[in-house]
């Protein structure tokens, strides 16, 4: 798998906390046996709602077309375990999500598909969102090695668990091959579990 060290591009801000995965990709678009085409429906209901109120959703705003970095609030990606959510975001063109905090399953799913997610403080996020809103063409640069996000002259620290950072940097974010490696150890561990190896060894 490829190493992920930096992500560079324009940023698009999704304001608000607790943006759930039903909003990122409504359940009706999960009726598929592939992930293809999900990008066409990312934030679909929010985009329609914005239009109905005479507003433009950031994902429909021509100024944010081609954005590579998504900015979010706290608890981003809460709700269902659908990997369709990070898949839809990535397929739309996003290469990194920076938020105040993330829901756990979304975070893990994103890492598993090589979509880096990193956190910044609430105050820094306010500044970053204001920058992205006011200057949609401004270049943002995420550096995983340095754990920083640059936006114009501004440099802020970003955080992610060391294990995630190291997996992305080394290209080991797709874990299956690692999990298959040294498989005899798996069989050994399973052999110690009475519900796998048989109940006879348990003393009553």
């Amino acid at each position, binding site marked *: 798998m490829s190493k992920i060290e930096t992500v560079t591009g324009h940023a698009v801000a999704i*304001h*608000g906390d*607790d943006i*759930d995965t*039903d*909003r990122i990709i*409504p*359940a*009706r678009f*999960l*009726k*598929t*046996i*592939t992930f293809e085409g999900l990008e066409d429906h990312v934030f679909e*209901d929010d985009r329609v*709602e914005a239009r109905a109120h005479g507003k433009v959703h950031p994902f429909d705003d021509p100024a944010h077309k081609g954005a590579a970095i998504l900015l979010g609030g*706290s*608890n981003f990606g*809460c*709700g*269902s*375990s*659908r*990997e369709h959510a990070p898949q839809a975001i990535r397929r739309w063109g996003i290469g990194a999500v920076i938020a105040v*905090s*993330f*829901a*756990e*399953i979304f975070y*893990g*799913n994103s890492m*598993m598909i090589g979509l880096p997610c990193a956190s910044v403080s609430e105050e820094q996020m306010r500044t970053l969102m204001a920058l992205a809103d006011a200057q949609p063409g401004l270049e943002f640069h995420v550096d995983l090695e340095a754990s920083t996000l640059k936006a114009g002259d501004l440099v802020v620290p970003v955080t992610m*668990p*060391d*294990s*995630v950072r*190291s*997996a992305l940097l080394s290209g*080991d974010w*797709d*874990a*299956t091959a*690692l*999990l*298959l490696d*040294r*498989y005899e*150890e*798996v069989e050994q*561990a*399973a052999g*110690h*579990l*009475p*519900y796998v190896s048989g*109940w*006879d060894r*348990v*003393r*009553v």
Partner: protein
Amino acid sequence: MARTLFKKVWDTHAVRTLPNGQTQLYIGLHLVHEVTSPQAFAELRERGWGVRAPQRTFATIDHIVPTAAQARPFTDVMAESMTAALERNCRDYGIRFFDLASGSQGIVHVIGPEMGLTQPGMTIACGDSHTSTHGAFGAIAFGIGTSQVRDVLATQTMALLPLKVRRIEVNGHLRPGVFAKDVILHIIGLLGVKGGTGYAYEYAGEVIDRMSMDERMTVCNMSIEGGARVGYVNPDETTFEFLRDRPYAPQGSDFDKAVAWWKSMASDPGAAYDDVVTINGAEIAPTVTWGINPGQSVGVNGRLPLPQDLPAAERPGITEALDFMGFSGGQQVEGTRIDVAFIGSCTNGRLSDLREAALVVRGHHVAPHVRALVVPGSQKVAIAAEKEGLDRIFQEAGFEWRRAGCSMCLAMNPDRLSGREICASSSNRNFKGRQGSPTGRTLLMSPAMVAAAAVAGEVVDIRSWSASVPAGV
């Protein structure tokens, strides 16, 4: 050293530490359904991997199943193709599939326990966030995404970081008209929708100890709505009695040995917790959500928050929720006119839920303007309910009696809201658009409260509305 159940299960299932610091964890039971698995199987084929432990892997269909007409092929072409894909995958890889013809089909989190597949001390994974339900048995159960489904299929393990453990003690007694659903809505309201991030929730205390397995499952089911990926209850006699004689539970003398091991996996007295929260059961009211996440709830006769009374940072979220729902700050949710009543889901689609609701509707009729449906959580729940005559009670009261499936919890099937309808729902999520209409509105509550709302045509306080209030726990 005294350890929690979480730590014991983690330690006994840990294979090794991976180079990036994550733990490779052995998974004892993998439950598969039609929505999050097709892409995982496609990758197995692409990479030439097999399914490592088909005997530890079980499948069913639930999300996309129509609950009215179930003849194949399904009218919905995509639902049919997802079902056909799962059939093929189960056939090709030798996985036991509880399909519509099996008599054991149902919502994945209902059938696992029902079949005795879910057992204490196990690790369980399923491509669905409500997998936390299985923690009611003292299992450590993870909701996972499709890439991890692939990992578990291919290796029977997955890579994870350990969680902290928060013990949540609910002590004392619940008041009449207060149910397991109210307990978990209260907990989420108290600790917030992200309060559990990074934690496993251990539910304990006198109220939880007295709960039936169905009730414990309702509580554990919604752990994820509080941000906790894992929730569990330590196994006890209630757990063991539930499992005795279930088809996949250990049988005969094996059962006694299993009980000994299960007991040994429970948290030790004196185990250290990262956090402890204590709640007085008597302070929990029948709870209803008024907003667009499960933490936005209130006691049924409490008042909705006023944005101007809140810290500035909280105002936009609360205002957005009030606006979407068409509520005003300071008003009560009691008296809200409803259009639809839904009883079912992995949260509240079990036999005891249907009994509680039937007790409320017996002898009454659904209000003329309300569309009401009851969707059993599994084929076995449906059969048991029909044997008791619950289907007749519901139908005589004007409810539709449906076949097993996820139904209106997430509207990946024909059951959905239209326009700005308001639904009193026994399900688990009130997110915008969750029940199938982008502008539809969901009020989460206990099945008994949904039943009462269906009859009254509006949200009522079950405690004062009915002369025959069912006893709480």
